[in-house]
């Protein structure tokens, strides 16, 4: 039997690692991947609490999170391709205006 707090600690560590990727990396692609990592760490929390409370709703929310993430990634990569076509760069410190 694994204590729930172990899952919470793992999720916190993964969340901070993903946050480091979002805040410190220069490439937009890596920033997006780090966002995926953060979302997954939150999903671990949901499933761990659902398991601890014997409640299936944690899993249901996790399924919805995964579906929304798939939609988000499709739109984000579309924006990224359009961005590269218009600005010819993928570095976050050069993408400082919203106007395409």
């Amino acid at each position, binding site marked *: 039997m694994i204590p729930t707090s172990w899952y919470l600690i793992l999720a916190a560590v*993964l969340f901070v690692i993903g*946050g480091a990727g979002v805040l*410190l990396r220069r490439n937009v692609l*890596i920033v*997006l991947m780090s966002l995926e990592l953060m979302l*997954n760490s939150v999903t671990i929390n949901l499933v761990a609490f659902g398991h601890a409370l014997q409640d*299936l709703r944690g899993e249901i929310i996790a399924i919805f999170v*995964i579906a929304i993430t798939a939609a988000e990634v499709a*739109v984000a990569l579309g924006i990224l*391709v359009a961005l590269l076509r218009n600005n010819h760069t993928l570095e976050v410190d050069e993408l400082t205006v919203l106007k395409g």
Partner: protein
Amino acid sequence: MEQAFFILLSAVAVGAGLLVVIARNPIHSALALVACLVQIAALYVLLGAPFLAVIQIFVYVGAVMVLFLFVIMMLDVRKEAQARFLPRAPLPGVIVLLILAGELIFLLLQSARLHAVMGPGPRVAEQPSVADLSLLLFQEYLLPFEVASVILLVALIGAVVLARSDEADEKAAQGKATRGAAR
């Protein structure tokens, strides 16, 4: 035995997660993220959620990460090899991260009170099956399920519109103009 598995899986997941952030080549980052997501899927099995583990591998590893790899290979990433991190001292980012980490550590240390609130929970003898999950999903959560499908459709259309090049628009406009002139 379970705890040994947990320690193995979480150690590999944390190592792969670090590699995502540290790796020089975006393709290495993507492959490390795939490894990390597979470990998390195995953790879902440990948590008694095998359906979620399968979904995780299908959707994340099968669809999302393949899309990422496809885009990375489509774009030119050669010049990214020089600068990994933001060039000017990323001090504010590091400070925000340290605050976030401290806050999470504080909350985890305080979680004894949380456990007291949560209580042991009603212990059911058997694990909830996939049938239970589907009943809950298609009865109580039917409306959110349908809304999620609409969101997927919107994302599909949005991605097509965003990734469409202006040249295609111009060509279509030209084609219309020539057709109009011919008439």
